[in-house]
């Protein structure tokens, strides 16, 4: 049985926007009867890219999260639609019928991911259909996956153990976007941005970068250790947003430093200057 899935590997996404632009090339102004009506020239982002700047000067990074329709197994949009205007195919693709769904604005609000867009001119809700019209015609993958330069977007049949996606899924854990929605999605992620706690350790007496210094992180049941690099930098990634943590920096001959940190955003502790023990 074919079961389509999408694995989005955040570590490989560099924010090129090829996926969004390929999606627009495929759909803007193009009618695929039974699958989708033309997407308006502007205003829709069936592959939405969420850019997040994390940290503060001089410790910043960018995370890009591509967010298409998640093709949920029990989709709220299916439930919100009247007359079967939205349905899930046996292969997992959720389709908005471009004729039956006309006028059904309520479908938009049903999606907690905000992945459905209203087409004012056609009076129609619209979203990513995983290029089902192409797949049914024998294409290998949707336009976004084809255009992705790094394999950050991996498409395939998750029921086929020999498929590329099956191999990549087996290689490690995956995550659901907004697991609190409780939706089982055909789109899974690896490396969704959480929060980080970072800092730069300095030996106060010599004013040198404090390399190879131990840094301990604890929060609830969790304990982690890191060592600063040659620039004195350390980083703990993948922390729970809104968590309470303690950070302890230790180096023999120096007074340890302790911090209580809440990760309501990515935290850069700045320069942590170690004083010599008296």
């Amino acid at each position, binding site marked *: 049985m074919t079961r389509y899935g999408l694995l989005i590997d955040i*570590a*490989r*996404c*560099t*924010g*090129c*926007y*090829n996926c*969004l*632009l*390929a999606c*627009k*090339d*495929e759909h*803007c102004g*193009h009618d695929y009867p039974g699958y989708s009506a033309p997407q308006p*020239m*502007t*205003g829709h*982002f069936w592959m939405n890219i969420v*850019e997040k*700047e994390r*940290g*503060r*000067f*001089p*410790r*910043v*990074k*960018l995370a*890009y999260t591509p967010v298409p329709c998640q093709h949920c197994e029990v989709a709220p949009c299916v439930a919100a639609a009247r007359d079967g205007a939205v349905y899930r195919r046996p292969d997992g693709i959720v389709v908005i019928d471009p004729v039956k769904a006309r006028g059904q604005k309520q479908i938009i609000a049903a999606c907690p991911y905000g992945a459905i867009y209203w087409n004012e001119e056609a009076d129609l809700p619209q979203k990513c259909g995983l290029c089902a019209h192409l797949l049914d015609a024998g294409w290998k993958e949707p*336009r976004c996956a*084809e*255009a992705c*330069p*790094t*394999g950050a977007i991996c498409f395939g049949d998750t029921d086929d153990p020999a498929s590329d996606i099956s191999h990549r899924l087996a290689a490690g854990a995956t995550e659901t976007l907004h697991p609190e929605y409780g939706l089982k999605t055909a789109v899974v992620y690896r490396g969704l941005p959480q929060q980080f706690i970072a800092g730069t350790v*300095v030996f106060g007496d010599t*004013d*040198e*970068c404090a*390399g190879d210094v131990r840094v301990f992180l604890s929060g609830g049941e969790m304990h982690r250790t890191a060592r600063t*690099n*040659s*620039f*004195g*930098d350390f980083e703990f990634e993948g922390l729970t947003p809104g968590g309470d943590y303690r950070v302890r920096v230790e180096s023999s001959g120096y007074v340890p430093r302790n911090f209580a940190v809440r990760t309501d955003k990515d935290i850069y502790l700045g320069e942590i200057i170690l004083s010599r023990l008296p």
Partner: protein
Amino acid sequence: MGGPVFVHVEDGVITRVRPIVFDESDTPTWTIEARGKEFSPPRKVALNPYVLPERTRVYSDKRLMYPMKRVDFDPHGERNPQNRGRSGYARISWDEALDTVAAEVKRIRAAYGPAAITASTSSHHNWGLLFYKMGPFGRFFNMLGYTTLFDNCDSWEGWLWGAVHAWGYHWRLGVCDNVDMLQDALKNTEMVVFWSVDPNTTAGNYAGQETVLWRLWLKELGVKMVFIDPWCNYTAATLGDKWLAPRPGTDAALAEAIAYVWIKEGTYDKWFVANRTLGFDEFKKQILGKKDGQARTPAWAAAITGLPARDITALAREWAGKRTMLGCGAMYGVGGACRQAYATEWTRLMVLLMAMQGLGKPGVNVWGGASMGPPVDYSFQFPGYSSVGWDTFGLVADKPARNSVTQRDYRLLLPESVTAPPVSWLGEGFCGESIEQQFRPYTCPEAGPDGAPIKMYYRHGGSYISTMTDTSRYIRMYQSPNLEFVVNQDCWWQSETPFADIILPACTNFERSDISEWAAPGGYGAISIGQNHRIVVYQKQCIEPVGESKSDYAIYTQLAARLGFEREYTEGNSEEDWIKKIYNISSMPQHMTYEDFKKKGYYVVPPPGKDYKPTVSNRWYYEGRPCDIPDPANPKAGTSQLGTPSGKIEFVSRSLSERFPDDEERPPLPRYIPSWEGHESELAEKYPLQLVSSHLRYSFHTHHEGKSPWLDEIPAHRVVKDGYAWWPVRLNPDDAAARGIAHGDIVRMYNDRGAVLGIARLTGRVRPGVVHSFQSSARYDPLEPGNPASIDKGGCVNLLTPARMISRNVPGMASNSCLVEVARWEGQPR
């Protein structure tokens, strides 16, 4: 630009533009084995993002649909040059348009001499080989005879004028080749220092997003990545391990301090320095402060750069302690730091630092952007657009075009050559023939009977308003009564279109045929391969020309007919005839018949076999062997010498010692020189922020920008607010707070040269004291059209950059030496 594509056409309309995806009949791809892993690229092309919206660019409502004449221009009466930029246009027929152009050409040549006409294209053009700008434009104007407008060596500036004097490579404009670098790096490299380079944005120039994967592979192998840039660029922000943000203009100080640490701690390759370089003792004296009393300590550099001294020391130690690639100094990793005051000092110091670490040993090299040198077959021959200079047809023509006019002009000085001649400069722009070529003095108009004032300008596409420096000068030039006639030939209505007298609509490369190798400029760019596979493409015409537009070749043929040299120009060849001739001089016939090639549309050149022996750039030099790099232009090929007078890397430049021994602004021994428009300048009291205007991410300069509505929907490109797509101006939150500027406010960025509006983005990605805003807005949108001093709403930040050249004897652009102030725009809605 940005990658070869499959184009779907239905009922004469382009419906899809997709990357080329290989099929089973295409060659197997390559694998590199390194550190116990195997690396292979995908069997498809990784396009740059702006290629995917190409159909919106072809069908843009900005397309010029028919020829036009400025309504207040009468070639037989009043010309009203002062109105250029604010006049209306009326549609005319092709015959009237071409008759007018031909008549003006004849009149001006008769009245002033053939040198009174100058013409130029943009630096880049809709991709192809034969019908690229050097083809139709180059052949026509060289046959006609005109004042060649030398392009300043824009991409390379500081490398051409500086690094050439340290390591040669003049035939590559001051940067080295990058052959077989990927396998060397994957096997041996431990760290890459990306100094003023954003490869995920500008990788390989024309090679799309092909090598983003390489940098992910390096990360997978644990290779460290350090980025040095006043702005945390896209590659730095997604892949970097460390970002160091020196103030713009201070890179040379940082470089000197790194050398200081290496010398003090003895952590440099003493053998290499002793055997492969000259002049180190002088350099060492300078670094230790024995020449001018100022030791180049990290503390000294810290005060200048704004970086902590400890970070400078740590960087120097990391660099020396690991096998490190320097990610600038090859094409493409030329960097914004090469376009600023005294950029020659930084580029030379880059070469000298790598010399101190043993340039060319395994894993240690100059590797531009970590984005060139895959395992491809370098012996496969296919010409590039700059293989033979400004008449590509000359590759196969019976008679290549030769310009009979000797007068020359210089792009950066074009406005003054029109409004306030004479102008003088050194060099021939792209000085690839010899070291001496960059010393040759020129004046325009040239002295003697063949010199003529510039009276006519033929603009073949492009826009200097957002790509050159202090660009209101070009607006004033257009409005000068000295410029009697202006033609603009383009596909789209762009920033300079409304300054023309006659507008000629050209078609894009989708509307005509061509042949080319992907991303291959040839010439100075030969063997610079920034993509995973070499691909030759039959660029089959997809659709009929839109509106009344014509191919450039057709336009110039018809002009040549009116001027009496049509037969000479075409030699009786159709566009298809020329294409077939090119095919037959390449390696292609050994692999495929022409008919099969046209049918398939593309050919992927097979990679070398398992017995291939890599010839890594600069490895021959390190090992003291004859150069084994397949670089056709190397005048010292076969010797173990670099292109310097001594054949070695020169800390003290012999070419500069001979030619400009007393030039304090580019001395034989390089050093940090405070910028003439930098953080220490007097002007900084009035304009305290330093503008960095790096290469645009979601367009190839002005090519795609302003023509596709989809690009305007990318917030990093433009932000739509109150119905207008604003250009981002990125500020550090502290600088913004001090000015009462909130994220999303419309701001006015200004200095004495002009003012530009944009939308404020508050970000930690710029260091305090720095503003980042991309160059290459394609939308010059003055609040007062026709007024050169008008505020521009469209974001053309080069209205603010200085016209002053890099230094006294270095006529390069210094775009990144620019002081500005930023304020909330008084005109925005409350």
